[in-house]
């Protein structure tokens, strides 16, 4: 399995490797590169929007920039980076030596770089410009890049389906002795719920994109307006995936948060089973609410109210999680390290995103703010304020485990401050713009929106700057940071019971699990030893 042990360590990361930890790092680093690219596109967009009227991007170029910003952020950053955490952590957390299908795992990763390059290449042949939603007939008549775009997303979808099969199989069949279902760390629960969603929803997106690609290349008539093609069909296929996709991108993030809070509050997580089950509830409900995206596309009005209700019901399990987290922090011995700061940032921003989501699910509001900047603001609070904050929390939290060295806490806290101010300044004004009726996806806007847009642009530049201290911290600490011991945070999940970084086979001896993962009692707060055999 590991033909690579003889090679120097760094070279393993550049080539085919079946070690889940190597693959996890490959995922995280690759997706971070795409995060930087997509972020650069975002700053380009905000720069264009700094003043009304087209400045340096033509309408066409603006649409291409916006489409690729969205697609790359979703498909090449959030999805793969969370899959990267899953790869690195799931086997360690359940006490396994690797994933169930190591070679399939490597394949899932190696599908991503070509798909990413395909998406980048599409920019040079006349980029996709139909938005990340690729609504037909716009995506049928668009420039040639749209075909490459569709292919790229199909490949990325395949990668995440294969990953989901691997995660579920691993979690079910490879747990260490004593790792019962109710002892799974909550991040593993999050990955499990996400994988269920990926398996059910992603194939439908693949279908839809195949139809688009066939229309564009072979000349089929699925969405050709002249011969009876129906745009509503595309919306149905697309949203069947893309509404769950929001949960696909949020559930593992919530899992990361559920790991961070108990460790940095020195308390057992409040309502473990409720959090675990709410992940599953979100997965199930998430599959039933897709059609609310078509409130404004002429769907049968009788279907609207049930969809509105189910879209609102999904807020309940999310609320369960948020209150459980708050109860976990309550009266805890808080340690405000960077992971904890980002977790708190997650809660505050995700709450805004989640609550405005309920507004949008309500039909009268939706009919008013649909396709306005209100939607843009909502989406960024959920996915950036939510998922990306959680990713940073996770990156700091597991940095010592992955690299074997500690990061610089002061730089990390500084980065959080810049990040938090930048994100809120960038996205909050957009709610205002949306309520006043500024339409999204247009390079130009009326004079009245100038001041909110300028605020947002300043915020986005600050946010873009916030990535520099992170990169500096990561690179310098990786090379020269103080060595981390096996369990620097005094956490109790299994990944901390092996050395940092873990050996290729993860555990010298497969651990036997005898307790729940968040048993932080009085003795644990004092740093008492755990009853499970420690290794490494």
């Amino acid at each position, binding site marked *: *399995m*590991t*033909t690579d*042990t003889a090679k120097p360590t760094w070279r393993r990361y550049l080539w085919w490797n079946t070690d889940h930890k190597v693959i996890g790092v490959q995922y995280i680093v690759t997706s971070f590169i795409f995060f930087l690219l997509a972020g650069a596109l975002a700053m380009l967009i905000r720069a264009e929007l700094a003043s009304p009227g087209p400045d340096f991007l033509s309408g066409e170029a603006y649409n291409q920039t916006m489409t690729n910003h969205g697609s790359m952020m979703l498909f090449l950053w959030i999805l793969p980076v969370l899959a990267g955490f899953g790869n690195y952590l799931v086997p360690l957390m359940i006490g*396994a*030596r*690797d994933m*169930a*299908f190591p070679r*399939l795992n490597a394949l899932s990763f190696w599908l991503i770089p070509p798909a990413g390059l395909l998406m980048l290449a599409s920019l040079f042949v006349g980029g996709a410009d139909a938005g990340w939603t690729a609504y037909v007939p716009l995506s049928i008549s668009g420039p040639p890049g749209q075909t490459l775009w569709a292919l790229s997303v199909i490949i990325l979808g395949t990668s995440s*389906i294969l990953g*989901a*099969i*691997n995660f*579920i*199989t*691993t979690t*079910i*069949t*490879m*747990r*260490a*002795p004593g*790792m019962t279902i109710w002892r799974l760390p909550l991040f593993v629960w999050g990955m499990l719920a996400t994988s269920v969603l990926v*398996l*059910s*929803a*992603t*194939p*439908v997106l*693949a*279908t*839809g994109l*195949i*139809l688009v690609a*066939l*229309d564009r290349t*072979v*000349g*089929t*008539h*699925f969405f*050709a307006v002249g*011969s*009876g*093609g*129906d745009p509503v*069909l595309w919306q*149905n*296929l697309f949203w*069947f995936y893309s509404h769950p996709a929001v949960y696909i991108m949020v559930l593992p993030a919530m899992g990361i948060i559920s790991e961070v809070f108990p460790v940095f509050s020195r308390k057992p997580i409040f309502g473990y089973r409720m959090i675990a089950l709410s992940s599953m509830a979100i997965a199930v409900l998430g599959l039933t609410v897709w059609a609310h995206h078509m409130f404004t596309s002429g769907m049968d009005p009788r279907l609207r109210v049930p969809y509105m209700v189910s879209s609102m019901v999904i807020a309940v399990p999310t609320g369960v999680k948020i209150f459980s987290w708050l109860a976990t922090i309550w009266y805890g011995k808080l340690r405000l390290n960077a992971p904890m700061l980002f977790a708190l940032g997650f809660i505050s921003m995700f709450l805004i995103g989640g609550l405005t989501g309920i507004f949008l699910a309500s039909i009268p509001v939706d009919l008013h703010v649909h396709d306005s900047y209100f939607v843009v603001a909502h989406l960024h609070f959920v996915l950036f304020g939510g998922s990306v904050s959680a990713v940073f929390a996770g990156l700091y939290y597991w940095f010592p485990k992955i690299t074997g060295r500690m990061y610089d806490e002061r730089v990390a806290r500084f980065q959080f401050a810049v990040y938090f101010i930048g994100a809120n300044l960038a996205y909050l004004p957009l709610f205002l713009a949306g309520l006043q009726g500024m339409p999204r996806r247009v390079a130009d806007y009326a004079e009245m929106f100038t001041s909110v847009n300028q605020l947002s642009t300043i915020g986005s530049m600050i946010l873009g700057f916030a990535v520099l201290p992170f990169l500096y911290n990561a690179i310098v600490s990786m090379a020269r940071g103080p060595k981390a011991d096996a369990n620097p945070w005094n956490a109790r999940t299994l990944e901390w019971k092996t050395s940092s970084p873990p050996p*290729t*086979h993860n555990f010298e001896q*497969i651990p036997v699990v005898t307790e729940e993962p968040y048993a932080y009692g009085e003795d644990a707060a004092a740093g008492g030893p755990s009853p499970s055999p420690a290794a490494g």
Partner: protein
Amino acid sequence: MSEHTLSHTDEFKAGRALGLDHRKLGMWLFIASEVMFFGGLIATFLHYKYQLGFPEIASLDVFQVGLNTLILLTSSLTVVEALSAIRHGRGGRMAIFLLLTILLGVAFLSGQAYEFYKLYEEGITLTSGVFGSAFFTLTGFHGLHVLIGVVWAIVVLARGLRGAYTAEQNMGVEVFGLYWHFVDIVWIILFTIIYLIP
């Protein structure tokens, strides 16, 4: 390295306690995703069928395709008999049934090719209209799955002839069988939806 591979096997202990084999579980999960993949295609076909009526359905040859359906059903029997044979340790009998499966799969594909050819003669093509697009995409993707199944059957047969499977170790045959039966099930549904329902 050798120590590592050695310990690599006890990682399946927890799963074995449940009586689940990871390859079989993986296959079932893959099938679940395939259900949704065909779901998208079926939804597309039926959406247009009820919107446009699809008068072209009249030119489909139900009996020729019915014969094809029987061929695919028979191939499911041969696959399950192949598995049953190797479970009794009868490798030769398994090989014969796998060979029959391959022949039946090829027969099905030939029947489909003939059907497509006839339709093209009548002017119903992939690009002739919404019906052609939906019909050829849906049945074509199923045919592609049969083709993959045939290739896989050849691989299983070759491995079987080299003695890779025994009465105890035959998960490779079983997992292939799951795939093949699933493709058969898809056809059972497609046959009704496309050819039979008015």
